[in-house]
């Protein structure tokens, strides 16, 4: 059964230095508050898995929390580059970052294999591509029935998966809707799962085929309203496109980035304090 605890407790007790962690959410429901709590608690040597690293992993990478990144598309959606990711790959700053890159199809299949407790996933792709030459985790197998050559990737089994969702009930059952990405698979593939939610309600009122993650598949549920900002939570708030654009300037320069992280994350006690300070910074810039 999931414990309903604070985000600080959840990250403190469930995410350890050196862990392999997947913080998923395909543009929607990205667990930013949880990523920032990992920075605040100074997690180190993490292997980060995420289809689209997005600004959440740009922050973790720039803050020095990661030793390796497993991903399939590493840009700032609608804006351009992830400058902290690029600085780590191109210039080893703040430390070298090992990368293992995939395509969306194979990484999403790898989560499915993890959830299904299979050793690998199989798909029809990569013939002719140079990616398999640089990623020993993309290989080829022969179909035992037809002889067709197919691509294979090992299952993903994170130590910890972190997602954000709209609702939980008081027992810790979680409901999410809208663009679901690979969140369900990432939770079921993980040893431990943490879910931050917009609200905790008496009754989920979920229709029969809704995406519900039962409490007993989760380790912790944390009530963190706004915890997906600056991404969005369908039915609650929109994507903060201005922040994604502002991140381009914040992240471009090492000094500016470090000051931003210190002021907004390291020097704030939790996500609501972070939001308060961020609002003040945004107002200052508008004046």
């Amino acid at each position, binding site marked *: 059964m999931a414990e309903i605890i604070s985000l600080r407790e959840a990250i403190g007790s469930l995410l350890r230095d050196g862990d392999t962690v997947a913080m998923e959410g*395909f*543009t*929607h429901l990205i667990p930013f508050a949880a990523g920032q709590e990992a920075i605040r608690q100074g997690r180190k040597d993490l292997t980060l898995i995420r*289809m689209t690293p997005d600004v959440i992993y740009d922050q973790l990478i720039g803050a020095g929390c990661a030793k390796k990144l497993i*991903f*399939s*598309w*590493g*840009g700032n*959606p*609608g804006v351009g*580059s*992830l400058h902290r*990711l*690029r600085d780590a*790959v*191109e210039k080893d700053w703040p430390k070298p970052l090992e990368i293992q*890159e*995939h*395509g*969306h*199809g*194979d990484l*999403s*299949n790898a*989560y*499915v294999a993890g959830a299904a407790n299979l050793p690998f996933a199989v*798909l*029809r*792709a*990569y*013939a*002719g*591509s*140079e*990616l398999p030459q*640089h990623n020993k985790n993309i290989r080829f197998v022969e179909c035992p029935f037809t002889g*067709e*050559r197919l691509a294979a990737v090992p299952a993903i089994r994170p130590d910890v998966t972190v997602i954000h969702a709209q609702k939980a009930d008081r027992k810790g059952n979680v409901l999410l809707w*809208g*663009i*679901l*990405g*690979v969140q*369900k*698979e990432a939770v079921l593939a993980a040893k431990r799962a943490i879910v931050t939610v917009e609200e905790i309600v008496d009754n989920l009122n979920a229709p029969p085929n809704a995406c519900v993650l039962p409490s007993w598949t989760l380790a912790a549920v944390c009530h963190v309203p706004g915890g997906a900002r600056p991404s*969005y939570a*369908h039915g609650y708030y*929109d*994507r903060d*496109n*201005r922040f*994604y654009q502002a991140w381009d300037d914040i992240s471009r320069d090492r000094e500016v980035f470090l000051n931003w992280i210190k002021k907004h994350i390291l020097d704030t006690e939790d996500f609501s304090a972070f939001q308060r300070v961020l609002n003040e910074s945004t107002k200052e810039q508008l004046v």
Partner: protein
Amino acid sequence: MSAANYTTTEMMTVAASRLLKNGAVCFVGIGLPSTAANLARLTHAPDIVLIYESGPIGAKPEVLPLSIGDGDLAERADTVVSTPEIFRYWLQGGRVDVGFLGAAQIDKFANINTTVIGDYQKPSTRLPGAGGAPEIASCAKEVVLVLKQSPRAFVKKLDFLTSVGYLDGGDARKRLGLPGNGPSAVVTDLCLMRPNEATKELTVAQLHPGITREQVQKATGWEIKFAANVPETAAPAENELRVLRDLLHRTAVAHGQTPAA
């Protein structure tokens, strides 16, 4: 040509949109492909089915998405499925007619690079990476590529082959046994290219109005071939331009950007 009342980017977007037939099932990349696909939906192809890799099927966005998973895509889609399902059942399942992609680099056999500029281990520019492109390039029945033409983008040799077009040309793709037929057209701001039937080398099939062969050659990193007959692309119709500009305008307003004048 100086009297043209449209930009070369508008010409490119309109020319790309015209390639999408009404009713086609189209797997759409973000950026130019998404703009062109939605322009098609709002003009000649109202029944086109737009699939985005984040999960929406039959998306009908009111404004262009800034990210591949904007809420508007889900809100107005026929259905929204998980990302594994999009790739497993819908794309690999053989239900996608056209994969619509951009690229950072392309070679003469329409192979594309979206991974790195320079050496893979020590790149001079780290690009975002593959995304869904390798699987789309493999499995969509045909692929249409849209990108601006320049010698930096149209190169003799890719720095990295992310997603396969026709590999070394001829029957090389066929021998790989991929289910999709490969790229059918490359649309740029200067022209429209199609693969030669036998060699699969990209060949200029149409020149956009006012564009010369010399301009196309100058913007290409290899000696570009022209079809025996190279008609001029029809200039954007008034209706196409109006719908495109309206779409871009309300998109800019919705995303809090300053609309272009």
